[in-house]
């Protein structure tokens, strides 16, 4: 009998560890992938921080020069406080908005979900133009500025709030979308007040999402140079310092120094992420009953009003630049025209650039989502003490902190090296795809992790004891439950690849110029209306993608989420 038991054990064990081997293997491949596509390129650029322009080693001399630059401390301080103010405004806004979407029974939720993404559906040029058309010196609403100027810290903060809102709202709404209904029933049965339920059930459940969202917003503001470049006036921040070193002075070595300094927020974010991870608690256990909000006017009407207000603000800002794409010349000739959409008049690539962007974004979205989600799953469900997990987690948080321009240059230096066999992809669409996946990796990763963490690991434990291989559990339980998050990542990657400029501007080849780069070129050439027009085409394509996702997601939910009701 003892013998039979032992045999039984030896049968069970390899099953369980086969899963483990799979997950370890995936982790190892993932680590290799991120090492080649992220760590090595970054290292090859950042090592230049210790070299002079001729390539000889100079130790810390560049850092010494940088630290003694008088404007450095000011830039660092400016970056810090604008990022803090933006985070403090965006997080409550995004939380309330996401709360309305997920925990109320207000009308038109799907519409609000689409509008929420508006700011990242179009290249950042659109909000910049809109702000100038609205609040600039000739602006329609300049009276509201009370004599102040949009060019400076308040312009930056205003534009950043608009621009960071979607990322925060996505992550928080994913965190809020799954909850255990039994907790709420228990709380109600215990006669807990609504405030108490909110503070002890809702907030702790969303804590990880809130921390992630804050880290994302803070880092986005610190590393983005597009907005301060256009609207910051001479208000210097760290990101524009990189721009000055690299694009203004073509000093890659000093650019690498500032790039290194900008990685500090990434390290802090990593520490914070680990801290939140330790405090984590799965909200959706195997025995959970999905929480479904019941209609309650006291909550639904204010939520509707709030979301309506935010949506109108977002729509209004975008609408101004849509109008701007149909006028001849702001503000002196406001007659309407369709000429601005005849892109070949302004840029030889013309409409071709648009189709190229669509192709780029589709590949980025599908390949990227698969990669991101599988890697996140292997991390969350892999062996807890795996040696691979820590470096993998760290690498996954890095891209957020790397300004696009630093990433672009890093890609050039690594992939264009004569000894690199991967050089074959240089100048092709592949390198643009790879770059876009890496550039937007972190937000996708955090969304995936947030979604997976809502699920109790017990699912896998039960499957293992039932001898069900982990990929079946993955396919039958994890994927369907996480489908909303997966679609979210898919569309996020798609629209990000449609609109990105900062990294790809260094990487496109003669035949692979994306539409987002065309937008910048037309604006530089003084063709603001044509630039707005192409930005609107990008917006329309992104919006179509988002609406398709909502329809598909809605249909799918109707058929598969029956158990949730």
């Amino acid at each position, binding site marked *: 009998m003892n013998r039979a038991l032992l045999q039984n054990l030896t049968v069970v064990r390899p099953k369980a560890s086969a899963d483990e081997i799979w997950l370890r293997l995936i982790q190892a491949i993932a680590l290799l992938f991120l090492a080649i596509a992220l760590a090595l390129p970054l290292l090859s650029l950042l090592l230049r921080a210790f070299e002079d322009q001729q390539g000889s080693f100079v130790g810390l001399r560049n850092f010494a020069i940088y630290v003694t630059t008088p404007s450095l401390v000011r830039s660092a301080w400016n970056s810090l406080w604008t990022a803090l103010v933006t985070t403090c405004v965006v997080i409550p806004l995004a939380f309330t908005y996401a709360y309305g979407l997920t925990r109320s029974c207000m009308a038109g939720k799907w519409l609000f979900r689409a509008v929420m993404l508006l700011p990242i559906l179009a290249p950042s040029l659109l909000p910049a133009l809109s702000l100038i058309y609205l609040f600039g010196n000739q602006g329609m609403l300049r009276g509201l500025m009370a004599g102040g100027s949009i060019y400076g810290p308040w312009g930056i903060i205003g534009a950043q709030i608009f621009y960071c809102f979607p990322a925060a709202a996505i992550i928080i709404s994913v965190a809020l979308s799954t909850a255990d209904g039994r907790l709420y029933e228990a709380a109600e049965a215990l006669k807990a007040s609504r405030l108490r339920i909110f503070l002890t059930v809702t907030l702790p459940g969303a804590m990880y999402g809130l921390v992630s969202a804050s880290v994302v917003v803070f880092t986005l503001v610190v590393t983005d140079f597009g907005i301060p470049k*256009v609207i910051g006036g001479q208000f210097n921040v760290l990101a524009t310092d990189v721009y000055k070193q690299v694009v203004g002075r073509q000093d890659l070595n000093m650019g690498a120094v500032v790039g290194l300094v900008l990685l500090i927020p990434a390290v802090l974010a990593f520490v914070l992420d680990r801290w939140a991870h330790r405090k984590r608690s799965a909200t959706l256990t195997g025995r959970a009953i999905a929480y479904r909000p019941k209609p309650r006017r006291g909550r639904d009407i204010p939520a509707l009003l709030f979301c309506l207000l935010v949506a109108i603000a977002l729509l209004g800002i975008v609408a101004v630049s849509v109008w701007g794409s149909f006028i001849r010349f702001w503000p002196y000739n406001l007659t309407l025209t369709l000429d601005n959409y005849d892109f070949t008049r302004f840029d030889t690539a013309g409409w071709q650039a648009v189709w190229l962007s669509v192709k780029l974004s589709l590949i980025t979205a599908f390949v990227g989502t698969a990669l991101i989600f599988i890697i996140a799953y292997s991390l969350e469900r892999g062996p807890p003490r795996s040696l691979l997990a820590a470096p993998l987690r760290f690498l996954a948080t890095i891209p957020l902190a790397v300004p696009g321009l630093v990433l672009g240059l890093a890609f050039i230096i690594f992939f264009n090296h004569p000894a690199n066999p991967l050089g074959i992809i240089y100048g092709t669409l592949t390198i643009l795809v790879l770059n876009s996946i890496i550039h937007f990796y972190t937000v996708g990763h955090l969304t995936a992790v947030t979604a997976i963490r809502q699920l109790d690991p017990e699912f896998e434990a039960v499957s293992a004891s039932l001898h069900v291989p982990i990929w079946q559990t993955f396919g039958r339980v994890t994927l369907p439950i996480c489908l909303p998050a997966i679609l979210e990542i898919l569309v996020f990657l798609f629209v990000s690849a449609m609109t990105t400029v900062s990294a790809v501007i260094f990487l496109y080849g003669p035949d692979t110029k994306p539409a987002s780069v065309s937008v910048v070129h037309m604006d530089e050439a003084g063709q603001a209306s044509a630039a707005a027009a192409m930005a609107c085409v990008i917006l329309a394509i992104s919006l179509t993608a988002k609406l398709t996702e909502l329809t598909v997601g809605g249909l799918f939910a109707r058929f598969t989420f029956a158990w949730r009701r």
Partner: protein
Amino acid sequence: MRFILLALAFLGLVPSAEAQQRTRLTVYTALENEQLAPFKQAAEAALRDVEIAWVRDSTGVITARLIAEKANPRADLVWGLSVFSLLQMEAQDMLEPYTPRGAEALRSNMRSARSPMTWTGMDAFVSAICFNTVVAQQRNLPRPTTWQDLLDPRFRGQIVMPNPNSSGTGFLTIAGWIANQGEQNAWNFMDRLHENIQQYTHSGSAPCNNAARGEFGVGLSFDMRSVTLKNQGAPIDIIVPSDGVGFDLEATAIMRGTRNLEAAKRLADFTVSHQAAELYGRYYAMLALPGVEPTVRGYPAEFAQRLVNANFAEIAAARERLLAEWQRRYDGKSAPR
């Protein structure tokens, strides 16, 4: 396997092996968008077996890219980039020495002094003032004709110029003042001008674009920009100050390490030809090749005399020091107004 390769080739993921009769030259440039098609057409008509593939971006971006690609250059040729960028690349030994046929005929200060030459000039673009006449009327601004006019206290907070640390146009502007007035006087001038500046922008084209939109009354930029804006109906005048303007050259060079040296040399020959100079003359008033009459309109007759006599190599050598000094004076302390 073959199917996969075909699929990849279709998606553009791997370079297609399509046989090409013509040699395809990758040309990096900072020319204006509208110039690309006519330049390509003319060159391909003159050199039937050459095809031009442009990669165009702003001066700063394209130069940063060229320098980052130094280990394994992807460009065969640079055609239409600021001479300051080329001098920087020359210092890093990135240019292929070659004297294009007929290059000796170019003005001596508009071509490389080395033998064989490392770069050849095409045309000069000058710093200029974009002046919004509607805003000027509203705010009662006088029309400036010289740089010194901009020191008038009526211009307080009305002027935008590019930050020379971010933009080549910004550097061209201050280099012109320094070459014209001498360094000490130029710094004194800039100290006083700083009082009237509303904003130093990061982009070289923003001052003129924004002046055209009436965001600001006066934008310091370069001459080429205004033509496009005027055609769209912007009420701006382009003013080339009469007390000496700095200028920059658009120039050509072959990249060291090009895989198509022979074809690149022939294209370089074309870029200094009479035919090419006529092409440049459609957009610029000051050409490197003497004896070609520019067809661009709207320039003062005695335009050439206003150009500061610049020694590009000398200015390029002092660039780092001048930029650091500028930053110390105006950038570190500049609070938003």
